[in-house]
């Protein structure tokens, strides 16, 4: 260790962890929906986030748009993409009752194709965006609050709150929560389960657009980064209890803090190992998560 365990360092590590956690929640919420609620193992989700980063990058570089604004513009495209993918998945696998192997291989193929396509189009160099607040630091006393971390974190919380409201207050949202439990009851309520699931999956991919913008604000992006997030995303999901948005936020914050501490005291190159360790620990000890039933 060798670092002075000063109050300053500790507080900043916690703060950095919370900000990181807010961002991780945005990254994970899509999986909370597709895996937690719909029980679809979409391991390609991180690839869509990276795709979102690149789209924000293009719109930012070509048109000077703020990356978050760019990602909001791109939302309908991602929504449509999500709907198309779900339809393919449903027709090819769910309907035929295929074993889960095929579904996993399908999404893995998509993860791979997306990454390679990005490499072909953009190369392996890091890309970053320009925006007024990215390099601006902010201090409250001894605590560092870099805006490039704070803005994504706050926007992420807004996004999560909006989604939670949608899922609990609107008919479609509640239908989505219900479809996980009882398809027949849903049909009797005159809602088409397939359509509901398609909407849910499309929403989960749409979140990737925003999460991608957050990512490229926080750090430069290159195509293979998605892989680092797969472990994180599922660790948070399991930790927070599948299908619970508040749980996702708590899990994300926890992971953010643990990673932040590891980076501060052991070095940042160990960060990817943290999420895996946390995932294994959770699976071994409490597979239903902290908030799970």
């Amino acid at each position: 260790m060798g670092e002075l365990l000063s109050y300053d360092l500790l507080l900043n590590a916690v703060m950095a962890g919370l900000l990181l956690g807010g961002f991780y929640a945005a990254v994970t919420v899509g999986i909370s929906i597709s895996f937690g609620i719909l029980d679809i193992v979409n391991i390609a989700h991180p690839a869509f986030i990276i795709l979102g980063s690149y789209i924000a990058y293009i719109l930012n570089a070509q048109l000077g748009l703020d990356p978050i604004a760019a990602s909001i513009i791109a939302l309908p495209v991602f929504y449509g993409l999500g709907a198309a993918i779900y339809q393919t998945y449903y027709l090819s696998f769910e309907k035929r009752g295929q074993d889960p192997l095929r579904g996993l291989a399908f999404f893995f193929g998509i993860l791979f194709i997306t990454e390679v396509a990005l490499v072909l189009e953009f190369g392996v160099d890091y890309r970053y965006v320009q925006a007024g607040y990215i390099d601006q630091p902010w201090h409250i006393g001894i605590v560092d609050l870099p805006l490039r971390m704070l803005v994504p974190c706050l926007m992420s919380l807004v996004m999560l709150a909006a989604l939670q409201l949608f899922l609990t207050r609107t008919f479609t949202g509640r239908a989505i929560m219900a479809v996980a439990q009882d398809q027949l009851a849903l049909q009797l309520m005159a809602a088409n389960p397939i359509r509901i699931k398609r909407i849910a999956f499309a929403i989960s991919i749409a979140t990737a657009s925003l999460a991608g913008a957050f990512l490229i604000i926080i750090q430069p992006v290159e195509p293979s980064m998605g892989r680092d997030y797969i472990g994180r995303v599922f660790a948070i999901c399991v930790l927070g209890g599948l299908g619970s948005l508040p749980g996702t936020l708590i899990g994300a914050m926890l992971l953010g803090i643990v990673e932040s501490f590891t980076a501060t005291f052991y070095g940042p190159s160990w960060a990817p190992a943290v999420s895996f360790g946390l995932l294994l620990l959770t699976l071994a000890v409490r597979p239903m998560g902290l908030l799970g039933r």
Partner: protein
Amino acid sequence: MNSAIRSGRFALACILVAAVVFAGARAVGNDYVFFAGYTVLQFIVLATAWNILGGYTGYVNFGTAAFFALGAYATVFFHKFYPLPVPVLVAIGAAVSGLVGLGMGYLTLRLRGAFFAIATLALAVVLQTLVVNWNYVGGSRGAYVIRPAEVPGLSLPYIQYLFLIMLALAVIAIATARSIERSKLGYGFATIRDDELAAEASGVPTLRLKLIATTLSGALMGMAGAPFPYYIGYLQPSSAFALEYAVNSIAMPMIGGTTSWIGPLVGALLMGTLQQVTTVTISSAVNLLIVGLLLVGFVIIAPNGLVGLVRPRLRSGRP
């Protein structure tokens, strides 16, 4: 008894085919055949190894690269520490990767297959992180592995020696897969894939069998990785842990067919050759794109692979 004789005859046939292949390669007189052939043979081993777990039991492993790289890095470790002959390194690679497979399986196989799959993907990332931080084997800079000048005992150019070893590993992998298929173990694996609950109710010790599959599969992948540093000369984590190992070891059995040993062989031969051609003529990135597209295409359209198109989905058990 009958099945032992048949297995023996099959192994003999494999060895004969291998001998013919080797002689034919030497007859061509161009070293490129050995370089390219080594890659194809490596894919045969990896695809067959993957299929023992993924195809036979239905548990998907996304972390082929992890087990492959473990074998490779075990070799690098010993190369710096105390040079050992390649066959011994192969055995060490098998042991290391097999043990990791067992450990990971023990932690995650009691849960749903999806969690196992995710854990394997995360395992690859974590192992890569560990290796990158371990300077003794070169860290992120990589390690040079100089080939020995001579092949012990045989008067062969070194690349031909490596080719021969990989040929032997391919024979071992295929013979193992085939003998599993036709054994009690093969029936057990198939029940796990078909319906794990019913398997348990019929007396199949599913956890134990899954652990056997994971260990065996991991060990074979480790064996394939062990000679790799000598083949490539300079080993970086990014090449040892490359995602293309994961994609190929899944795509080849899924395209060839997952229910028998023939599938991964067909898939590896076809895709391996295709990739050699594409990489040389177009680019390696486009080549990977094609692999990904083929995987998704086959998974949607022909779920039982090429072998499944030729004959209906049925275990090749006793008549």
